[in-house]
């Protein structure tokens, strides 16, 4: 995974990024991009901590991380709605108006929450919604747009879930994060259903479902698979769910019944290609 994009963004937003990442500034600046990229997923977590988490620790880190994702989603839908008129059929405009409205509200809410905590919000990143050309027709081909939308929403659900335990010290923030988390899941459910109506299927040929079956994306692109890996768990908190207590619980049902979290570094690796 190439983290140059995130580095570029961080450098632009904060010229002192390297200093914050490591006291050995010159080492990172001169050689970091070549030699230290493999260490960056870990360094980025530390960056959020050091740069933005001075006052409230993991809570502010989690919120700035969430804000990054909300900026991405809001920017994605805004570009689709405003600058690519004609992409979204008239019959689906209301749906994406609703989703865009929510993502904008999440951005505003997170900025306000960070301000309340006395922490600086990150600067809005610049995005490449084609992910470096992987989804080159995302704003001209509606099925591609829907596939990326589904992936962003499902990833958002996993990202928020991955942060809930970091918010335990701030109950009100935790509740709000859960309230956003469930809205993202509602979005995902609807977009998945739109894709099913347009013919998206699971591996067995049956229509894609509003919930996640195994680790299947229902999208014919390996590029999105990182957002679905690990969703196929059938053991939860040590409890083997298949056929539990004599009930007819299949592997598919067991995996669908529980959505899985993703940690910050995994999510950052997924969204990095979308960042300039």
């Amino acid at each position: 995974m190439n983290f140059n994009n995130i580095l570029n963004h961080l450098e632009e937003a904060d010229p002192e990024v390297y200093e914050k990442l490591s006291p050995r500034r010159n080492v990172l600046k001169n050689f970091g991009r070549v030699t230290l990229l493999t260490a960056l997923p870990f360094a980025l977590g530390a960056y959020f901590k050091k740069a933005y988490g001075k006052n409230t620790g993991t809570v502010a880190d989690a919120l700035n991380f969430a804000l990054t994702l909300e900026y991405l989603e809001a920017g994605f839908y805004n570009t689709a709605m405003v600058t690519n008129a004609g992409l979204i059929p008239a019959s689906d405009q209301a749906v994406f108006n609703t989703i865009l409205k929510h993502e904008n509200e999440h951005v505003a809410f997170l900025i306000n929450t960070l301000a309340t905590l006395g922490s600086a919000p990150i600067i809005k990143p610049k995005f490449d919604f084609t992910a470096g050309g992987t989804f080159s027709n995302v704003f001209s081909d509606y099925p591609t747009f829907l596939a990326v939308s589904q992936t962003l929403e499902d990833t958002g659900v996993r990202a928020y879930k991955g942060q809930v335990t970091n918010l335990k010290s701030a109950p009100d923030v935790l509740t709000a994060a859960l309230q956003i988390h469930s809205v993202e899941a509602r979005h995902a459910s609807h977009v998945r259903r739109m894709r099913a109506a347009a013919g998206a299927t699971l591996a067995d040929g049956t229509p894609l479902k509003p919930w996640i079956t195994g680790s299947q994306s229902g999208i014919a692109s390996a590029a999105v698979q990182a957002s679905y890996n690990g969703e196929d768990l059938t053991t939860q908190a040590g409890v083997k769910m298949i056929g539990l207590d004599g009930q007819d619980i299949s592997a598919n049902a067991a995996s669908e019944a529980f959505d899985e979290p993703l940690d910050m570094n995994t999510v950052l690796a997924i969204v990095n290609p979308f960042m300039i």
Partner: protein
Amino acid sequence: MKQKIVSSQVEEILETTEVRSDVSRRHFLQLAGGIAGAGILLAACKKSNDDNTGKAPAGSSISVGSGDTGVLNYAYVLEQLEAAFYERVVLSPYANISPDELRLLTDIKDHEVAHREFYKTVLGSSAIAGINTDFSSINFSDRTSVLTAARAFEDLGVSAYNGAGRLLQSSTYLLMAGKIASVESRHAAYLHDIISNGTFADSSVVDNNGLDLSRTPAQVVAAASVYINNKIDVSNLPNI
């Protein structure tokens, strides 16, 4: 308890039969009838035990308890309610149900059963008794009646999980609650949509900050009480 009594009665009957070899045909039939009846009783008990570890008496009060155990029992109440509802929906679907709706409502039933069994298993001996459901206000042969109730259950479940996360001390169970909460949200959005497409996250559930509903346990059990023939006592849960 019931099962033990019935078993000992059967043993007594068998013993009696063996000892009294001169039993009259009429008496034998009476005994046989008794044994057959006991068999049905045993089967009934077994079924109840499969669903829940014995049901609480109808109308009785059930305290979910305190601390994390209490929160998990509270979630267990909701999952029992949802699972029982969808089990009935799938057992006798509403008139003219489409194959796609039957497929996905069966999925939801399976998910809720999985959630119910998960809580029952992790709670172990701390699990509350099975609740008595009361679905008399729902017309199970009518699509609108069923789906409206289902949507209400799911929205209530989402708001319950959103409100309960802060009450959990264990990170493991907080994460588990999160894993289930988003699946309930997917269900909720689906039910909104098949009642009225595009209402997956409408203003009835999402506010102007883009936040879904959150409810306290007291608010949730009050809303669920019409469907539960037990008083669910959540007064000992944490108040954070």
